[in-house]
């Protein structure tokens, strides 16, 4: 099993001009590693819907890769997104599931089905074909460049150890992309995507 830090370090090192949407336990640590104009934190937004939002971005911007760093608890709240991804295929969309088996930001309560769920099997069962999973940094690092180039939609499960982060919030004393309001950041992202 990887640490979340190892997984995010690998992603940050490989990332170029993709849009990256984060939520929950990935939001603050990603913001500590990346200060990219196309980073967006689904914080203060609706739980469970970061992937839905990111899919909408991907469908709207087919010439850009869009990555969503989702949690397993978050995915379970809107699991139908895996089917929606098949029904509305975005070849430029990559959904990363940081699977730690817990609701990390509320005290590490286990998610339903923890230890028994096979997200890859669920994704394949929904009809997705670019489905991968990693639990070692070296194999993830080696595979990531090809994954970023592949025609998706792509689902990547990253088995990471749980940590003790509290809930992410917006405001000062945060990484830059968490300092403004959700609306300000959303509209700033829109302006950047539209080249305004």
């Amino acid at each position: 099993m990887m640490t979340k830090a190892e997984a995010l370090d690998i992603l940050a090192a490989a990332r170029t001009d993709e849009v990256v949407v984060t939520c929950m336990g990935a939001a603050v640590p990603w913001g500590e590693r990346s200060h990219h104009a196309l980073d967006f934190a689904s914080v203060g937004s609706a739980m469970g819907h970061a992937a839905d939002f990111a899919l909408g971005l991907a469908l709207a911007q087919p010439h850009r890769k869009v990555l969503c760093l989702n949690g397993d608890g978050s995915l379970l709240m809107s699991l139908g997104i895996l089917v929606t991804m098949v029904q509305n295929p975005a070849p430029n969309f990559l959904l990363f599931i940081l699977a730690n088996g817990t609701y990390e930001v509320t005290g590490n309560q286990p998610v339903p089905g923890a230890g028994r769920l096979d997200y890859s099997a669920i994704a394949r069962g929904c009809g997705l074909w670019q489905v991968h999973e990693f639990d070692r940094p070296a194999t993830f690092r080696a595979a990531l460049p090809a994954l970023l180039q592949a025609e998706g939609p792509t689902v990547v499960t990253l088995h990471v150890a749980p940590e003790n982060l509290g809930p992410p919030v917006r405001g000062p004393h945060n990484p830059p992309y968490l300092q403004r309001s959700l609306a300000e950041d959303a509209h700033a992202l829109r302006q950047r995507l539209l080249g305004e």
Partner: protein
Amino acid sequence: MAQAKRILEALKQLGTTHIVSLPDNLARALLEAGEADPDIQMVPVCREGEAMALAAGLYIGGKQPVVVIQCTGFLEAGDALRGTLWAMKIPVLLLLGYRGYRTLGQPQKDSAAVFFEPTLRAWDIPYDFLGSDEDIPKIVSCWKRAQERSRPVALLLTEECS
């Protein structure tokens, strides 16, 4: 009954690019018209909360979506609406099928109808009614209101589209 093709044409004249939807009897003809129209990208979802967030993503990505769902799904999607379209200040038109509208004046009311308008008001969603072709100009007025307030506005389908 409002003609689905006229509703769709009005939406297209406003620049609508996508219809994000989950089927509803009242909007069935509208969704069928959208499917047949090469200028509209239909985006079916599994649950109405996805529709709110996905529509938000489409808008932030530069597109102009409309959400077409039933009022029961609207109720289900409450926090998704709050956390995406409302909190991100996104001016999207919501076409919401008003299940139980005709029961409001009757002793046995559809509970979906009982909760619907009070919930719209509680969630700060202005709304108007669309039941016939005479109401189609409201599509423009509701869309303009959404742009002015930079938040969602709803049109309630009280009759089945034809």
